[in-house]
């Protein structure tokens, strides 16, 4: 199904911006918040996984039921390395990519969600282990 994706801040994401290797941060920024009716139509329940695809690729996120807070046809994902994995880099000559109102395709998946380490290594980085 096609959805409009919006990314944005959440209080949990904000509280962990200086603690990005924590499980809480990774858990928060790898969630996809959806309207209950869309979840029904998609056939997914809270805690299950969906594959979110945009021009630049796909990423697996965990579904969070958002009640009526998110309108049907839209999803919300907190800012962070998971969703930016698929965000387009085109800035339309403004310097600012589209981080909101982006069309994505969402399908249920049984694939596991990547760890932060997997995401980092996919992009050519190397995880730093905090001592």
């Amino acid at each position, binding site marked *: 199904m096609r959805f409009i994706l919006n*990314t944005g801040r959440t209080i949990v994401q904000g509280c962990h*911006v200086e603690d990005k*290797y924590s499980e809480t941060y990774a858990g928060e920024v790898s969630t996809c918040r959806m309207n209950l009716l869309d979840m029904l139509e998609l056939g997914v329940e809270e805690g299950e996984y969906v594959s979110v695809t945009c021009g630049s690729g796909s990423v697996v996120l965990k579904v969070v039921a958002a009640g009526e807070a998110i*309108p049907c046809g839209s999803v919300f994902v907190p800012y962070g390395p998971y969703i930016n*994995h698929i965000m387009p*880099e085109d800035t339309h000559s*403004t310097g600012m990519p589209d981080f909101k109102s982006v069309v994505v395709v969402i399908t249920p998946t049984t694939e596991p969600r990547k760890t932060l380490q997997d995401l980092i290594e996919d992009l050519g980085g190397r995880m730093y282990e905090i001592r």
Partner: protein
Amino acid sequence: MKFDDVLCPFCGCLCDDITVTAEGGRVTGVDNTCLLGTSKFLGDNRLKNPIMRTDDGWKDVTYDEAIASTLDALLEADRPLLYGWSGTHGEAQCIGVHMAELLGAVIDNTSSVCHGPSILAIQEVGHPGCTLGQVKNRADVIIYWGCNPTEAHPRHMSRYTTYADGYFLDNAFRDRTVIVVDVRRTETAELADVFVEIKPGGDYAVLSALRAMVRGRDEMIPDSIAGVSKEQLRHIVEICKNAKFCAVFFGVGLTMTRGKYKNVRNAIELVDELSRHTKATITPMRGHFNVYGSNEVNTWMSGYPYAIDFCRGIAFYNPGETTAVDILARKECDAALIVASDPAAHLPSKCIRHLANIPVVQIDPYPNMTTAFCNLQIPVAVSGIDAEGTAYRMDGVPIRLRKVLETEYPTDTMLLGRIYEAMMEVRGR
């Protein structure tokens, strides 16, 4: 030891009423902070010393070795990018601009992926703004458009708007009308007197409709615009025109959707229209505590607020070309210095892939996503906790950050100053 009236170095609210208790070289307690501020003051995840990437892991290095390595990376580069700057104080930002000029580098700050488009709009049509003190004491109508202060600026409503007592308002909470405009029902929307839910990407159309209605052209407007009924638009126009003082705050809901700076321009022009009937102002909800300062410092030093390219020997500014995302996506820069920000957590993946392939030096107190893509990270004191300096609040008011801890970490100013002096020596300046 207890410190009163400390500034919180988290968001653009720059709350200046924080009480901090510090013992044994650590912050042990805070009062008056929101959750974001509390996590910042009590955070305990600092990098202990500079680290350098090796073939099979990381090794500790000294500050002298780290500075020498930074010089090599930046002086050998043909087109270095100096990015970040929003999470440090103005004095360090000054050195960054000097450094960019010396290197012929591009210097950009995080506003290019935040309120950069707002600045482009302001450059087109001006900024009818005011201080947050004016809003607190006078505004009886508050509009939050495309922003969610409950989660991003948690004390904004209690310090400056909805719940703040005002000198010219007898009963501030009851006398203020709060309108929230957003594409989803946020927690802020739950606190509003009027919530306007618009379809994603519909901001420009709704702003245009409101402008037309303020001008008395109701007959031009169809029954519904981007999911908002004409009746509700008329209601908002009446509230705004009858206000004594209408303060609009907007967030990246306007700058990150299609239309970008044109959305903001339209919002400014709506405020312009409203100002023919009452007093109206507009203020961007700035994110990092000193992103505004970075724009100010860049502007007074180079003439431009962000995305400044010194490769011609003079300052050149062309957002869309000289902005960090575009330069990284084009794989144009061949080295990067990242200061007080975390691009690997906030830029699209194509940009990060390029960071992984070039020499990157990061100056930041904490391990973050960019740590995984840098060759060298140098920890520094945290501005506002163990480093002093100047920061600009979201309304452009400069305030002095206080220091509540003694530290052995160098400040950003000290470290960047040493690097810059060594650069000048090498370049014979």
